[in-house]
């Protein structure tokens, strides 16, 4: 009997602390500033417990019955606390208000528990034993909860289901209490039915917990995440903040609509404007259609082949109105042929020849992607290049990854080309680098298509000028069998993010 009683106290205490931790964590997640959130949540909670203790003096009548009712109430309010908070953040402006309201309610109810319990057991034990036992298990429960919360609950269950789970535990303790205090509760049926109802409702919500989560999260980012899609190849996320549209692939920023014109103008025009009468252009990667948009500014171009691995990516940028506005419906142009294939495999097997090739592939952050920056790849690219044609390769940042940039330059050289490295400043990326290459010489263009915002013939030479902190360093070429570039890039980014 007494063990069951003290176990209930332990569980009740654990539940109370869990709700408090969840409130603090949810607030930190959603609003940020975890020091502030935790301080105010804990402060409010303790204060509310004081209110509860104070109020307990006014409580008269059947204490056991009241205790069970309070437990049911805590179970429901606490159990749904994180769901309600997520929803509130997603759908209302009243998150802060609701947060402190819930903390106040739960705190007050929990504050009532201990005094009530002490009064309930005062006839069974001497006063000093009752105080000692109840508080001991109360604090033990707190320890239990505080260890369980970060190690098991958050990683395994997540915040919504953790709260619901402890709501169920709380309601179960309430049900159990009707037996513990059977002498004081004359007709327990209705009370027990209420307990069971709470358990059923909480369990149902627990079973559907992940859906609640998704439902709430979708709406939390309603203003921010426009789109989030998992394809077999990558995780595509599109965010918007005011007029800034940003694309993330596997959480790497691909572009920001505010300054992507700088990147894509720099990627395409220094090379393409210099190619005499270009008719056919190949784009490897660049499924966002932004490079294609720039290429379409040359009316003499008859055909653009875009090879991008991910059909979902090219479909999005052909269909989504927000995105087609950004790329001027470039992928829907009759001149454009979209092929969804792995770049290297396509380059290795297709017969087509082009005047200009844009290589806009992900940075070589692993050995699989690193293959796209090897002597073998650039040699194979040559089979698709008209004799006087040129190609350009996005080549990571010569500022943050200086050795990597010059390694790409050296690799293209050893594959048998003359290289013309240059760079441009793109605010959301920083200094970004490109390597243009051809078998012939390069004469900078004097005329660009109309309507460019960044490039101009007069300032073009600046792009080819590397200040000392980005100047050439001697690097070996990147071969398939050593992939020095992957190691170098990894080391350089590790250095930056330290």
């Amino acid at each position, binding site marked *: 009997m007494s063990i069951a009683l003290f176990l209930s106290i332990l569980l009740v205490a654990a539940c109370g602390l869990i709700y408090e931790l969840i409130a603090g964590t949810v607030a930190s997640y959603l609003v940020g500033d975890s020091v502030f959130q935790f301080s105010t949540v804990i402060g409010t909670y303790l204060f509310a417990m004081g209110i509860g203790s104070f109020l307990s003096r006014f409580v008269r009548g059947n204490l056991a019955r009241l205790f069970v009712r309070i437990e049911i109430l805590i179970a429901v309010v606490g159990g749904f606390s994180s769901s309600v908070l997520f929803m509130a953040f997603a759908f209302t402006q009243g998150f802060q208000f609701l947060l402190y309201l819930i903390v106040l309610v739960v705190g007050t109810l929990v504050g009532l528990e201990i005094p009530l319990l002490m009064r309930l057991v005062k006839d069974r034990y001497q006063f000093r034993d009752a105080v000692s036992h109840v508080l001991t298990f109360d604090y033990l429960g707190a320890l239990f909860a505080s260890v369980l919360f970060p190690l*098991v609950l958050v990683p*395994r*269950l997540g915040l919504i*289901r953790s709260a619901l*789970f402890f709501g169920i535990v709380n309601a179960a303790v309430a049900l159990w209490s009707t037996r513990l205090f059977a002498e004081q509760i004359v007709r327990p049926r209705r009370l027990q039915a209420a307990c069971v109802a709470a358990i059923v409702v909480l369990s149902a919500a627990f079973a559907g917990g992940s859906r609640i989560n998704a439902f709430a999260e979708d709406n939390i980012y309603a203003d921010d995440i426009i789109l989030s899609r998992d394809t*077999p*190849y990558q995780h595509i996320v599109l965010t918007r903040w005011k007029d800034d549209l940003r694309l993330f692939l596997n959480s790497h920023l691909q572009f920001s609509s505010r300054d992507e014109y700088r990147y894509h103008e720099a990627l395409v025009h220094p090379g393409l404007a210099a190619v005499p009468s270009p008719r056919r252009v190949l784009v490897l990667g660049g499924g966002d259609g932004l490079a294609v948009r720039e290429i379409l500014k040359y009316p003499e171009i008859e055909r653009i082949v875009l090879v991008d*691995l991910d059909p979902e990516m090219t479909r999005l940028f052909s269909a989504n109105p927000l995105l087609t506005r950004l790329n001027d419906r470039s992928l829907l142009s009759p001149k454009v042929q979209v092929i969804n294939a*792995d*770049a*290297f*495999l396509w380059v*290795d097997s297709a017969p087509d020849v082009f005047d200009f090739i844009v290589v806009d*592939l992900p940075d070589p952050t*692993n*050995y*699989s*992607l*690193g*293959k*796209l920056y*090897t*002597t*073998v*790849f650039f040699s194979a690219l040559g089979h698709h290049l008209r004799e006087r044609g040129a190609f350009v390769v996005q080549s990571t940042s010569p500022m943050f990854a200086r050795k990597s940039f010059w390694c790409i330059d050296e690799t293209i050289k050893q594959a048998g080309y003359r290289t013309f490295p240059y760079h441009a400043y793109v605010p959301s990326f920083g200094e970004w680098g490109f390597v243009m290459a051809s078998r012939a010489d390069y004469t900078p263009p004097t005329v660009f298509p109309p309507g460019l915002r960044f490039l101009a013939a007069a300032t073009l030479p600046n792009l080819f000028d590397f200040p000392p902190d980005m100047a050439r360093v001697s690097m070996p070429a990147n*071969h*398939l*069998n*050593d*992939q020095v570039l*992957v190691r170098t890039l990894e080391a350089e980014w590790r250095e930056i993010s330290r």
Partner: protein
Amino acid sequence: MARDQPLTPTRREFCVASAAALVGLSIKGDRPLAGGFVNDDMPIGHALRARAAVGAAATTVRIPIVVVGGGMAGLSAAWRLQKRGFDRFVVLELSPQAGGNSRSGQNETTGYPWGAHYVPIPDERATYVRELFAELGVLKADGTWDERHLCMAQQERLFIHGRWQEGIEPAVGLTADDRDQFRRFGDVTAALRASRRFTVPLDNGLSSEDASLDRLSFAAWLAEQRFDSKPLLWYADYACRDDYGALASGVSAWAGLHYFSSRDNDEKGPLTWPEGNGWIVKRLLERVGRFVRPGQPVRAIRRDRSEFRVRAGETDYVCDAVIFAAPTFLAPYIIEGPPPLSRCEYSPWMTANLTLETIPDLDRGEPAWDNVIMSSPALGYVDAMHQSLRSVAGKTVWTFYWALAEMEPSAGRSFLAAKDWAYWKEAILTDLERVHPRIRACVSRLDVMRIGHAMVRPTVGAVFSAQRQALKRSQDRLIFAHSDVSGLSLFEEAQFRGVTAADRVLRLIA
């Protein structure tokens, strides 16, 4: 319905179920797994051993040369004969598929090896290997190697102390003494390498100067040289298991040192292909496939005055010379007279190919080409799609190698024959679970190949044995051409034996 069955679950069941439910874990089902034994030559081999009586031949074919065995030695002999303008010969192969230890398989994703899966960069003196690779475009006219055939990065990794390190030589968690011993061992092998007496093929450098190394085991030599570092001894054992299917105690010191001293620590190599050396087999078959008769086990070879009668099926091939390019242990069951090599030990192996729908644990690093687990009794796995040019990891085949090195060879063979597919499947998946806890959810097919006599063991005294040296010099028109004659089961040895046998046979029948 049985009345006495309790309707309530047992307490144990209840606890397990509620624990699982409470933690919110649903127990994930494994992928259904297909597979079985493949390329099982055991029944044919046992039939040969039974020496069933050979009746009268239904047909007789007259042909100057018969090559017995369509493995790398036999195919290389055929390649040489054809290159020298000789086409009146036939290659008789026991299995339905030629290639021997270099056989390969193919599924809708990739080709994959069943045995040998790479060739180290051959040195200048390995002329026949270089000649073949030049012909196949692997060695370019300017003397460089086509990078597509060089093993791509990352070549090798070792799972040690709970994480992957690059390279197979242990480098993590070494004591100062371990490092010292690795350095000392490196000095010894560097000196032997510089002597140019440890070569592949071995006949290019074999010198009686080193005969003393053939008279003690590698393990004994290591002890004698006061090498006792655990990581170093593991590495030595691993090398012997990998190349010879035996432990360091099961091979001679000469053979153990040959592994480490015969090749340049050249960062370029090795040469490899998705289907392993099966790629070379395919290229050779494109050239000499018309001479090859698969599924034709040779039952008997009889001398008939100056001729030989080679019986396969119902046909007697009457010929002037025989190139015996089958494993030498088969000779006593087929050829009349005393065996050419009286003591030859063979290592039993098990190879498996696992079809993977997804790659497990990519977040802990992309698979290398060769992936070794230090605490495993097996040799690790090789990723067939490693040489693919694709830029995103996906479906692949892993070839899992397991030399039964710890057992006596005959005990290993009985063990191989006794255990069923389910046993090997469990053994393999359990072994891989050490490093890939999710492996069972990724594998859709697991095929197992058992090879009782997978490779000859260079035991103490084997390589320098008088019998073996005499066999190399023999002027008989029955020429032994298997890599067993060299004593090392390597592609280069098989090719060298095949090519030189072809040259000799043309001289003898001229």
